[in-house]
């Protein structure tokens, strides 16, 4: 997956977790929490969806890496670059 494809994959997960939010204006360099109504259960949903959809395991110590779109994509790149885009 390319960087852009990984970003789309995260966006797709976010759309499911925050269905009331307009994600078209999401700023990649700002924390999710400053832009979206997300609580700790929602963050666990992001972690779970990455696990279920891509078998990516995010250890608890790395949760802070999922703070913004930019940091999330940067964190996932080495883990997902060899994966195919899910149809």
């Amino acid at each position, binding site marked *: 997956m390319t960087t852009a494809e990984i970003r789309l994959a995260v966006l797709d997960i976010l759309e*499911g*977790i*925050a*269905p*009331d939010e307009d994600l078209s204006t999401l700023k990649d360099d700002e924390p999710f929490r400053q832009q979206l*109504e997300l609580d700790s*259960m929602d963050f*666990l*949903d992001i972690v*779970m969806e990455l*696990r*279920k959809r891509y078998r990516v*395991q995010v250890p608890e110590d790395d949760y802070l890496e999922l703070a913004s779109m930019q940091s999330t994509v940067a964190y996932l790149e080495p883990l997902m670059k060899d994966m195919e885009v899910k149809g």
Partner: protein
Amino acid sequence: MVAGLPDRERIVITGIGLTAPNGNSLAEFREALLAGRSGVTPYEIRYVGKTLAGVCTFDELRHQKKKDVRRGTRAGSVGIYCANEAIRDSGLDWPNVDPAGVGIYIGVTEHGNVETENEIYELKGFDYDTKYWSHHHNPRTVANNPAGEISLNLGITGPHYTIGAACAAGNAGFIQGAQMLRLGECDVALAGGVSESVRTFGIFASFKSQGALAWHEDPARASRPFDKERNGIVVAEGGCIYVLERLSDARARGARIYGEIAGYAMNSDASDFVLPNPRRQAQCVRLALRRAGLAPQQIDIVSTHATGTTSGDAQECDALREVFNGSPTRFNNAKSFIGHAMGAAGALELTGNLPAFQDKVCHATINVDQLDPECALDGLVANQPQETAGVDTILNNSFGMLGINSVVIVKKI
């Protein structure tokens, strides 16, 4: 005995919110009951396949965000819809109601089966590796979930809990609400029952294994209490929640009053896991009558519990004949229209009769093509609604597995 109590100990219904398979408000539900319109439809559920059910069509997003619907449970959404509609209907000045003075008392037949079944189904796709088990499982399946979601949605900080009472739960919710108001534990009670049971395959499969799951080519004719050809239960979902207040408070704010909880009783069969016990049912009815200070012949309508099973209907009729022998009371049944809404059943069935205080009509029990002689009751209102000279009292039966019986009597005020 309620008669003679001071107004601050008399409990009245001042708001109603409901969703039934054939109506999403009391007006719609009543109209369907008088028109003989069923809410039973073809339905398909995992593992069981094609069957029948009573499914509700209320708009979940009227009072919830999509995210809250996703995070919560169907029972929570049913409860939130009914609670909001009841509050709106009550005319309470909600922004100025002390949220600490509101209690939430919600009857449930069961809770957690839907969510657990879904998780196990998902987990199967991951070879039962529990790393993939949702962190939402516990908050969705705790037994207080349907009441707790109402508290979260409405910002209510008084007590909230569910009352697990099998299919007697709707009445049990009303009783709990009335008792807590009398005890001074709350000033406004949101009380009733909810059910999400159509989403658990287990309830269908279990009734099927028990030989108690109804089937008919025409879904509208599948739920047929008292009929010779009845062959079991149609599972339904639904909810009905009242705003209950002390009569003194309701009068002080000039509230519209639907009726007074004039008497109630609960008891136990202590005889069988699933088979009813007509002697205990009769005792429960008599106890509620005694507490209301009413004789059987003073009850205008009995809303029966009958579910459409061979033995259950006959046994209830046996109990009713024992108590109401020679009385001019009319008997009807709402399950014949909507199926068995489990934890919501008693609450919906009582409520569908309340408009009779004004319109003086007793709705029918439908689908009685050939009355089973064992279910013959003088006063059974079969197939067509009946005009009456007036309705002042309604008695609602609701019974459940493990031998739990409940009776609520509502009086016109």
